[in-house]
């Protein structure tokens, strides 16, 4: 188990002669806690795989260093970093039994057989595989095999961290939910630093204590699921976390207060001087409601999603999404909407303007 530190790490693939390097990974400078559950979340091409490869040692960053518990490991190969990895597709020896598959990483390190048996039984118990230990892996379903892969990742007690690279891709949605809960529970039981790479917000938010949101080669925010939801630091975080994502609407400033659609909006935002840049407000669909007075809109679409409704409304050419309760009525005549001031944020050039200073 280890704390993982990135000290001014950034990475560029070697540029053609005479050209400036293009960074696939922008500078990151962070410390991840020992025993934490982290998720790297972002769309394809955001740099999350590059970062994962730097942690595992498959890639040496072009600048900066990476430390496990204060020890520099930047130049160490994967095999010397004591890291377990679980990949997108099951890596299983079909001809071996489930037991032998789980025992493999331990026997590889010459662990005495009595200890191997104890540990394999423990892990099998956690993953509900105890009944199947003597079965051949070949006969298992895709999720059964992926459970073995997870088990092999979890079986060693001497690892610095366990890395998961989109481990639930091949799993049926009905089972994803179970394995995700299982993984979370296992993390609580064994307390190893876990790093989970995914493009799926639900997986990231339900698994991790801290989510590292990546966009365009850089880390845009590290936060708890609640922080990412309530205070997205960048418009991308607002858009990417939440379904539907945050509404981002153009605005102007009048004496420090945002103005949208000729309406001065109530915020807790105070004393901002108008200092230029592209200004936008961000408001999540959950915090837009129908009201007696407010911004007049036309209703474009109502979607009944069972537990709630998603309503798409329009003010002039600007579409706004709102989420309302399953039984809540939708006004028939001249609807108006209101933004909850507690959850209205101001953005300048895509970055949140912190209250009180511009």
């Amino acid at each position: 188990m280890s704390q993982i530190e990135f000290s001014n790490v950034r990475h560029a693939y070697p540029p053609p002669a005479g050209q400036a390097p293009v960074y696939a990974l922008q500078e990151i400078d962070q410390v991840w806690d020992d025993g934490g559950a982290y998720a790297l979340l972002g769309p394809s091409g955001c740099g999350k795989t590059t970062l994962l490869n730097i942690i595992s040692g498959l890639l040496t960053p072009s600048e900066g260093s990476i430390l496990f518990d204060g020890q520099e490991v930047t130049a160490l190969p994967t095999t010397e970093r004591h890291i377990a990895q679980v990949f997108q597709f099951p890596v299983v020896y079909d001809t071996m039994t489930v037991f032998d598959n789980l025992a493999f990483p331990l026997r590889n390190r010459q662990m005495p057989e009595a200890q191997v048996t104890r540990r394999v039984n423990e892990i099998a118990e956690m993953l509900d595989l105890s009944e199947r230990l003597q079965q051949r892996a070949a006969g298992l379903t895709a999720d059964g095999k992926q459970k073995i892969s997870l088990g092999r990742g979890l079986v060693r007690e001497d690892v610095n961290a366990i890395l998961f690279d989109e481990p639930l891709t091949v799993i049926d949605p009905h089972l994803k939910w179970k394995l995700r809960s299982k993984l979370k529970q296992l993390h609580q039981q064994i307390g190893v630093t876990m790093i989970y790479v995914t493009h799926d917000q639900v997986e990231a938010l339900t698994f991790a204590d801290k989510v590292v949101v990546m966009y365009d080669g850089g880390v845009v925010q590290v936060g708890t699921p609640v922080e990412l939801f309530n205070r997205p630091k960048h418009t991308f975080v607002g858009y990417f976390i939440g379904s539907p994502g945050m509404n981002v609407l153009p605005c102007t400033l009048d004496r420090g207060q945002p103005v949208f659609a000729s309406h001065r909006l109530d915020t807790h935002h105070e004393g901002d001087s108008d200092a230029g840049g592209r200004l936008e407000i961000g408001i999540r669909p959950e915090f837009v409601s129908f009201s007696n007075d407010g911004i007049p809109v036309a209703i474009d679409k109502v979607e009944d999603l069972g537990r709630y409704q998603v309503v798409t409304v329009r003010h002039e050419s600007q579409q706004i999404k709102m989420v309302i309760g399953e039984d809540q009525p939708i006004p028939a005549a001249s609807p108006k909407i209101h933004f909850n001031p507690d959850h209205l944020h101001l953005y300048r050039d895509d970055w949140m303007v912190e209250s009180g200073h511009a």
Partner: protein
Amino acid sequence: MAIELRKVSLRVGAETHIHETDLSLQPGEFNILLGTTLSGKTSLMRLMAGLEKPTSGELWANDSNVTGVPVQKRSVAMVYQAFINYPSFSVYDNIASPLKVAGLPKAQIDEKVRRFADLLQLTPMLQRLPDELSGGQQQRTALARALVKGADLVLLDEPLANLDYKLREELRDELPKMFADTGATVVYATSEPLEALMLGGYTATLNEGRVVQFGKTSTIYRQPHSLEAARVFSDPPINTATIEKRGSSAQLGETAKWKLPRSLADMPDGRYTIGIRPHHLLPTGKGVKVDGEVQIAEISGSESIVRVNIEGNNWVSEAHGIHSYKFGERSSFYFEADRCLYFDARDQLLETRE
């Protein structure tokens, strides 16, 4: 095109893939097949397309019997989960391919390709090869090719499953709109209940090679006629428990007791099953109180999802807002009795009226 399956079944060797099925799809409607892997979604689509001949029964299109008519002779387009395009053709030529096969004049082909490329936001990529596109763009190319044919029946087999979820969200929003204008009958297979709700239209819930229930999507969600239908259309899984009915009262475990709707009070006393959707089991509020031991709590931004053991049943609560719990902690949850679904001994839904 109206599509009708009349007592259709499909057996392969000793295995039954589709049990005898009757299903009637109205022309121009958006239809969803919802079920887990191996529930029969793909088999049913292949039967509708004519890629597979039914072991028994008949397939009707509008008013003609098309059983055994091969797919080439039918007006059908299909899009699969894997992005299938011609790798050596540009996006333009990929979209144009079915029109060239049909022998359309060049000017007409050009007009159609550009119209559908525009609709699917592919105009800037028309000269690229599939390899040079993102997954979403590749799948949009496959969709454009299916649309441009103007087929009367369009079959989409989990077309968004391999895409990033934000792209999925956008395409889900656009898909029903795209097809609404073409007049095609669409059949869309998915294993995700939420996706079915987002797409709307009509839904057939599938389980183990049978159509469990078919009707308007929101009705199938709110009024599943059996426990099986409720289970297929619920993620996280619907909470179930056995209750003891005595007169007009229902009892769950030792302490939870509530009054039954009038229509149920007249039923014979004994054991019944209830179903409560996870978002109707809340950590605060009014209604019937139940206590349980918290197993795991997940917070996903706006929502808290808690697994809790209540009277020996593994239940899930899905609530707005942030609620923190410790593993093993005892806590109370509430549900409103009139949100309950009641099932009889044969797991059929009992109608509830006051």
